[in-house]
């Protein structure tokens, strides 16, 4: 800027040790103004947003956020990230609403034929599933042998139609099987276990299985009463189909030897079951959410 300034270098005027000096390369003054401006900005920010801790409380700032909570009440709160999130969620819900309405109004089969709606079901359903169902059924719906059924296979204890899935989610389920060690002796239990293993093609002792067959259809054990004379189960009461290769309570595929497989079945027959409890979701989810979830679960691959 030699247009106006001499080219000689300026110093700050300090001299140390006779000849040590400091160059002065002054900052432009707008730079200083910029600094003051940011101080003022900080003050304004402090007044608008929560900032200082004061004892057990803090300065909350003037800014407020208004949102509608789960119960439909309108709330006004000092600005904070949670209130902001609630507000953002309100807006997201508003944007999703037309799709939810469409899902609620359409029969399941028509939803499944509309590619764009199916797209929505898959993305929104995934979120609802992750929030509510994944804790038991796992995030992909694969379940956990011995605890929670796999929703991606084609075996449905209570039926895999849209209506049945919707009913299951809405009202919940409670699976129960009595403990047979009270009624049967160990040999009888062993025979039964061998028979059940043979039903789905697992290796079993043929003689024991034959005896088990008789017992299965007898009045002593009366297994057929719940599982049906063909052992294919009855979906009205949720009794398992024993002839397919899918096991929920007895971890047969997880065992290495035929003996252990039979033993896994043995244990279940002996001790019975009172674990197949699925809670009812009608109090927690709205009907349109349940409907969407139904379509999603049906689409996981197992729906019938």
């Amino acid at each position, binding site marked *: 800027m030699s247009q106006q300034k001499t080219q000689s270098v300026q110093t700050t005027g300090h001299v140390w040790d006779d000849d040590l000096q400091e160059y*002065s390369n002054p900052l432009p003054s707008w730079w200083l103004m910029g600094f003051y401006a940011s101080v003022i900005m900080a003050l304004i920010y402090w007044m608008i947003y929560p900032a200082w801790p004061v004892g057990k409380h803090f300065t909350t700032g003037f800014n407020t956020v208004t949102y509608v909570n789960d119960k439909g009440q309108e709330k006004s709160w000092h600005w904070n990230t949670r209130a902001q999130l609630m507000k953002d969620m309100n807006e997201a819900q508003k944007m999703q609403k037309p799709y939810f309405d469409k899902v609620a109004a359409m029969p399941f089969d028509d939803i499944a034929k509309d590619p764009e709606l199916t797209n929505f079901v898959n993305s929104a359903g995934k979120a609802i599933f992750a929030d509510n169902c994944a804790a038991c059924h796992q995030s992909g719906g694969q379940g956990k042998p011995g605890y929670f059924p796999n929703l991606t296979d*084609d075996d449905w204890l209570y039926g895999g139609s849209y209506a049945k899935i919707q009913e299951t989610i809405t009202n919940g389920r409670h699976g129960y099987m009595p403990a047979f060690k009270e009624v049967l002796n160990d040999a009888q239990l062993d025979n039964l276990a061998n028979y059940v293993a043979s039903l789905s093609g697992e290796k079993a002792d043929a003689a024991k299985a034959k005896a088990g067959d008789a017992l299965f259809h007898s009045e002593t054990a009366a297994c057929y009463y719940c599982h049906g004379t063909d052992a294919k189960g009855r979906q009205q009461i949720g009794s398992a189909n024993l002839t397919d290769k*899918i096991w929920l309570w007895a971890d047969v595929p997880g065992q290495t030897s035929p003996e252990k497989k039979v033993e896994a079945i043995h244990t279940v027959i002996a001790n019975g079951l009172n674990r197949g409890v699925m809670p009812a979701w009608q109090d927690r989810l709205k009907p349109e959410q349940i409907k969407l979830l139904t379509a999603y679960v049906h689409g996981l691959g197992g729906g019938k």
Partner: protein
Amino acid sequence: MPTTEASSLYQKRIPIFTRSVKGKFRSFKTAMLTLAYAVYFGLPWLPWHRGHEAVSQAVLFDLPGRKFYLFDLVVYPQDIFWLSLLLFIAGALLFFATGLVGRAFCGYFCFQTLWTDAFIFIERTVQGERPARQRLYKQAWNAEKLGKLGLTHLLWLAWAFWTAFTFVLYYGHAPELTVQFFSGKAPNVAYFTTLVLTLTTYVAAGWAREQVCLYMCPYARFQGVMYDPETMAVAYDSRRGEGAAGRALPRAGVRTLEERKAKGHGDCIDCKLCVQVCPTGIDIRNGLQYQCIACGLCVDACNSVMDSIGFPQGLIRYDSEANLSAKVPSKPRLHWKRLKIIGWGVALAIMSGALISSVGHRTSLDAAVQQMRQPLFVMLSDGRIRNRYQIRITNKGVEDEIYDISTKGVPDTALDMGNFREVKVRAGKSLIVQASVSLPQEMAEHDNSFEFMVTPRSQPAHAVALATRFDYKHDE
């Protein structure tokens, strides 16, 4: 020489009143400015016909729709790597050009330069040439000063506003947005952007000017590393200008070249015209400085002086450091035969070629398959194994399209897509469809990899094969 007088830590801006100048660099700058402005201010208004799609604007950045329309090219988020290629090309071009001809970008193409130039033009039109502006600056406040400065700032603001508003037009349909904007119905973000850009343009081109180049621009900080002795830069030939006895005003006795040579004076007549025209206010006669944006205006100024007094041109010129200090300076010329320049040139050519071929070979279908991994596979009640997949299809064309989906490598009967063996995807939309493949166990063990085929009905030749795999057990 250091002086020991104490000075303030902060410096008031020293105003610069640039003198206007005529010459080839000034003409080039003006031409660049005209071209850039014609493109920038005109482009949003250029209509462009695109099939039956509603967007009829040549350039439109549709942010909510996540699509950039550039003439016949529609850019989707999947094409993000074009952006990285483009950024690389821009970077390489900058290094290439800087190594060759110095800060050519700064002086002629940079937005800051262009807008400052325009603002100076307004300033001069209202307030007059340099001496008049200096007088006005020093004179006490009166009606004349108030009127002239007021008008200048008003025009600056108007120009800044139009600049900002034009920027916003790129993000919406220009004619519609203009009507909305001035009837108060445009989205808030449009007003906010316009406000911010108006203010920043006004401040940067009106008030800050060279301060942006000197203090804010990062490029000024690292340009030095791209220079080398062969780089062409605006330079003052100090050997010729200063001679042995230094520069001298053209008084009697040192007027002609012969007289000056006899007395040992150089060719510079110390008219200071080169300093007065400089937009960053430096004296190029002090040598290469980081403040110099290589705009060439001082070259024009000095050449015009040399012409008027009958001295040869080129006292200030584009030349390389090496040539200036050579025993016998030759005619300035580009030294491109250097490893650095050739290297950047090759990189530039390869990357530009890659971008052009990638853009040229784009198809209207973009598809990808993802295997669902939770669970990786599932056994069905009859013992078959099932794997599930998500196929994402994006129709990048301008017409709705129906896509047929099939498999290659596994029997067609193994594929289950629910209701969507064929899917219709609207122009410019994406859709995700679920597919499941079920195979008997014996088969599952062989068919480890296979392909999904996605075939657009109207252009079967553009079918895409998506390779994927079939899993039947967990990897040990």
